[in-house]
């Protein structure tokens, strides 16, 4: 009974949905603030993302002629639900209570749903700009997804388990994967930047070329939920990488009693995800947008080869350890 109550608190309040939504808005604020300071501007105040979300919920919802309203209404909600669920399986304060063998695959799958949602919205908008944006989103998905999956799965290979929480425990006992697999870490960061469609990979939403890409015809609460999906993906993606490579909410020292380890774990989670956000924001500010065919070349030539090299190294290393 107590367990059920605690589980519900975990899922819905802290560190579940309520905390997640608040943290997503804080992430958006920090991202915009860091970018603004680097560009010599002032940047928004800290309640800006929250105010944007509330404002957009109140705006009028316009349906273009001949568009299926039910799909337009439900797809943003499905995308938001997918990323919020993915977040639940990542260790925040300790092992996730919903962990099971294979949850790394589930998280990766759920994190690709927003891109499919973008494609659906773009295609159904009956608007040439949205259709092109949707096509570009899916093309980009094909390019970065393979390397990204490979390097997220190499820590699982080395740790010998398919559960993120157990990978974190393995890192606590041995070493963080960022030191064991640095190539994988870099490829994962690049892949996350591409997944979130941030510069230099913001091709699907290139404002100066195709208006707003797949989101052109969304208004009101639909657009609010799609933006919130992007913010939550940023948190979930950063949490995933910090769990897989930076050891998640643990340090190589075991802390007792358990409530103290939860508090320390939470603080470590904050520090590590903020570090990853800082890296991603710097990449976003320091580069311009590349074209889709250039991304194709760079993606397959460099990023995919780096990922395959990483996998080869991991297989070689585990072969040596097994044989030795």
């Amino acid at each position, binding site marked *: 009974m107590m367990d059920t109550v605690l589980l519900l608190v975990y899922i819905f309040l802290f560190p579940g949905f309520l905390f997640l939504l608040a943290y997503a808005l804080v992430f958006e604020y920090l991202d915009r603030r860091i970018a603004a300071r680097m560009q010599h501007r002032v940047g928004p105040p800290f309640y800006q993302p929250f105010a944007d979300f509330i404002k957009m919920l109140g705006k009028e919802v316009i349906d273009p002629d001949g568009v299926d309203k039910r799909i337009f209404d439900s797809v943003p909600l499905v995308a938001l639900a997918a990323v919020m669920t993915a977040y639940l399986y990542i260790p925040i304060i300790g092992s996730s209570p919903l962990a099971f063998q294979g949850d790394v695959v589930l998280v990766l799958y759920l994190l690709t749903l927003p891109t499919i949602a973008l494609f659906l919205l773009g295609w159904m908008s009956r608007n040439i700009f949205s259709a092109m944006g949707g096509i570009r989103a899916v093309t980009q998905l094909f390019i970065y997804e393979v390397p990204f999956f490979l390097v997220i799965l190499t820590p699982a290979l080395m740790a010998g388990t398919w559960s993120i929480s157990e990978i974190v425990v393995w890192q606590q006992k041995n070493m963080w994967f960022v030191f064991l697999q640095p190539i994988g870490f870099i490829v994962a960061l690049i892949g996350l930047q591409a997944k979130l469609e941030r510069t230099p990979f913001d091709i699907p939403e290139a404002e*100066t*070329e195709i208006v707003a890409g797949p989101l052109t015809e969304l208004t009101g609460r639909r657009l609010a939920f799609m933006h919130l999906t992007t913010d939550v993906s940023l948190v979930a993606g950063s949490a995933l990488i910090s769990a897989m490579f930076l050891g998640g909410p643990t340090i190589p020292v075991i802390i007792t009693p358990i409530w103290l380890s939860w508090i320390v774990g939470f603080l470590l989670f904050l520090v590590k995800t903020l570090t990853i956000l800082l890296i991603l924001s710097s990449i976003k500010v320091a580069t311009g947008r590349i074209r889709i065919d250039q991304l194709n070349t760079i993606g397959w030539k460099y990023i995919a080869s780096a990922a395959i090299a990483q996998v080869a190294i991991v297989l070689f290393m585990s072969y040596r350890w097994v044989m030795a």
Partner: protein
Amino acid sequence: MPEVIIPIGPHHPALKEPVNFKVIADGEKIVRLELDISYNHRGIEKAAEQRDFIRVLPLLERVCGICSHSHSTAFAKGIEEIMQLEIPPRAQYIRTIVAELERMHSHLLWLGVAAHEIGFNTLFMWIWRDREAVQDTLEEMSGNRVHYGMNEIGGVRRDLTPEQVNAALVRLPHLEERIKKYVDMVNNQETLLIRFKGIGKLSKEEVLKYGAVGPTARASGVDYDIRSDDPYLAYKEAPWKVVTDTHGDVYGRTIVRIGELEESLKIVRYCLEHLPEGPIRVTVPKIAPKGEIFSRYEAPRGELAHFIRTNGTDKVERIDIRTPTLANWTSVAMCLVNQNLADIPVIVAAIDPCLSCTSRITVMNDYDRKASSITMDELRRQSRARFQRAERL
């Protein structure tokens, strides 16, 4: 994907002014382009025929916001030549200073816009912050950030005080340093290089065949520059050189414009330091003798040509303005074929289009001067009707 018509314009975030490119694309490659530049047409050439010289100068200045001084100087220079007037050297130097400051602010604006077109917003923010130094100088001198109103037939309207000259000189060294930094960035920053190099390439023969002017032409090695071909104002005395490049693509045009920024800074500094004393205007007869003049001026975007005919009254008989952007449209339409869709904003931005200069006619028909208001539903109905008509075309 089969051939698709993608409307770029008249309303589009990539365009600063309305123009209609109907791009016929096959996937991401452009097959053909159709052009319609009538959206900013304001009737200036016809209106200029009904105004005497004092009133026509402000009208011509408002052909364009960014190259306003170019139009009024070209016209004033032409009329002064018809009337056979020689304006005092101090006025010539002041006109040169404002002209070169205008060129600097235009090129800095362009550089920021080009960075924005490829999504590189950081560079855009930094450059526009440095552009404020030029705008502050212009505001101190003329009271306005655009549309300076410095010219009149026979000289300039305002003098420069020693404080203004010193304030301007003090701002120049910092700007020079920042420009050097931008040269460095353009040459070394990866995303800029891969989005600019090889895009929109025009060879020297194509430039001459399509009649391109200005930095677009100079980037392909064609060294036409009216400031040296047909010198006017103080350009014979100030030390400067024509900047050309051989790349011929958007990267070459960027290099040429940054080079021109450096040269303009040198000219401004020279003119500020060597400003001659004396009067700033001469008295002007009210009537111009009958004559015809072809006055050319190097505007920031290229060669501006005013063909002026007077007929012995105090109005012009005909003024025909050929702006640099009009001359460059043919080359843009030609070099866009077989390029990627994603490069349209970059290539169009590379000629630095100024559509207000290009289309100068609209007719306001106000015979029925009664007030009326349109309800929201009516507006919606009209805009939908217009869209459906356009779709059917």
